[in-house]
């Protein structure tokens, strides 16, 4: 079955660092519309350390690397994002312990486990207007590709970016039920969720990094700083 190498995962993470740092203010501004405006800064604080400490991160295998990343997040990211992203990396690390490559099925399971962990940690479900509203459809998409005889990684990534982007628009009118945005009640309706936007933007940047052609359509993805 189609494999994803450790070096591909490393590239994805390095790309994510750049995406998050470039969007620090933009993500915080989005969070400011209905939340407390700390999302971009909290996330960037962690990814800045990942980028700076990149050479010191244990890369003996995927699991070890993801575990270390989860630890850096736990140490440096505050707010709700620390536990959410830290839990996600931790769960993915546990399913990739000792591995130097993972199959698409394994990657899909890693994401599934991350989603379960995030749900257990924060109690959010689909439709609560959190980044799970992007991650869950992405996970479903990956499951679909796993089921095909000879899955194409590029096609899979492109489809994931599409569903994440779609989630932005689809959840915009919802009222947030989790996180600080949930405490402004109706005021959160009509604004995009910064967590969902961040997932869509990251996936879109991955497409670019891995040479997967795709045209973003959501304003929130197009608007991100160059």
């Amino acid at each position: 079955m189609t494999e994803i190498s450790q070096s591909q995962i490393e590239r994805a993470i390095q790309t994510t660092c750049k995406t998050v740092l470039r969007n620090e203010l933009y993500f915080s501004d989005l969070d400011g519309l209905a939340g407390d405006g700390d999302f971009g800064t909290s996330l960037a604080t962690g990814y800045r350390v990942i980028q700076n400490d990149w050479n010191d991160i244990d890369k003996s295998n995927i699991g070890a690397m993801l575990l270390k990343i989860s630890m850096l997040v736990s140490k440096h990211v505050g707010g709700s994002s620390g536990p959410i992203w830290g839990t996600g990396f931790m769960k993915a690390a546990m399913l990739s312990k000792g591995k130097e490559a993972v199959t698409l099925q394994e990657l899909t399971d890693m994401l599934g486990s991350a989603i379960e962990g995030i749900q257990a940690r924060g109690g959010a479900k689909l439709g609560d207007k959190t980044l799970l509203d992007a991650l869950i459809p992405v996970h479903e998409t990956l499951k679909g590709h796993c089921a095909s005889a000879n899955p194409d990684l590029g096609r899979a990534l492109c489809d994931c970016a599409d569903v994440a982007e779609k989630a932005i628009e689809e959840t915009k009118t919802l009222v947030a039920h989790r996180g600080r945005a949930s405490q402004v009640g109706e005021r959160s309706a009509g604004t995009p969720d910064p967590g969902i936007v961040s997932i869509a933007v990251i996936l879109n940047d991955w497409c670019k990094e891995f040479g997967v052609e795709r045209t973003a359509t959501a304003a929130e993805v197009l608007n991100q700083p160059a």
Partner: protein
Amino acid sequence: MKKFVNDPAQFVPEFMKGIAQANPDLLDYTPEFQMITRKGGPNNSKVSIVQGSGSGHEPAHVMAVGPGMLTGACQGAVFAAPPVDACYETIKACASDAGVLVLVNNYQGDRMAWDMATEMATAEDINVKQFWINDDVAVEDSLYTVGRRGVAGNFFVIKACGAAADQGKSLDEVYAIAEKVNNNVRTMGVALTSCIPPAKGTPIFELGDDEIEVGVGIHGEPGRRREKIHSADKITEELFEAVSKDIPFNSGDRIALMINGLGGTPITELYVMYAKAHDLAEQAGFTVVRNYVGEYCTSLEMAGASLTILRLDAELEALLDAPAETAARIF
């Protein structure tokens, strides 16, 4: 934004450094985790009490560390829960054979961070219990699925648990006291102005020149409603009504009464409110046994105040009476 700040990103570590420098005999400061602990660390025969939350509520959290109060606390960025590791390190630094009670205001970010930290500490055989404080009556139920918020009532939970722990009570006993205080304490606040988080540089919300936010949260969360400003007496009545009807408190209750300033309101205005609140308490048949007027749980420089009522019994009265010492002091 006009504030005494240098680099807004360094605001929290800088003020924590100041607190540490000002209290060398009382506190230890670990900059790596924005953590402050009692000088000399935990006492193995006493339960430790720890807390940690976003910054901006001082003296709440790190300025509540000291004999008779918290054993240790860590701070996140302004209004953001601390990272998991800071919470974990705080539990570890305060680990005691008698156990550790994590006593935190009920917000999603804080809950998640302390949940993870507690799991990590438990995995290392540290005896940890958690208790979530949720005294804010402003938001009744609803949408706000993480439950009611913890605000100034926090002070009473810490004070009572800190005293009980220092008296040698067991972890279960201290936990029971936290429960008792939390079950008997209610708060509601009102904002006259927004605050400006240093890193954000702009107000969290906008209020008209003649508007107030009734039931505001300590991070500037919206409350019950926005209204035209009215007299101190009328505002105090509204807070008193909402708070006293919530449990409800009953005629004959012995109570502690707190008027807490949110950061930008001078003490004199708090006493104007206290005078009214005291009269209302007497009219309701309560006996005001103790009172607290000043800043206990703030929201940066927000102009505003909250009113807290705690129902007392002999045990709680004795615990509030017990000596305590923190970085928040006059002399």
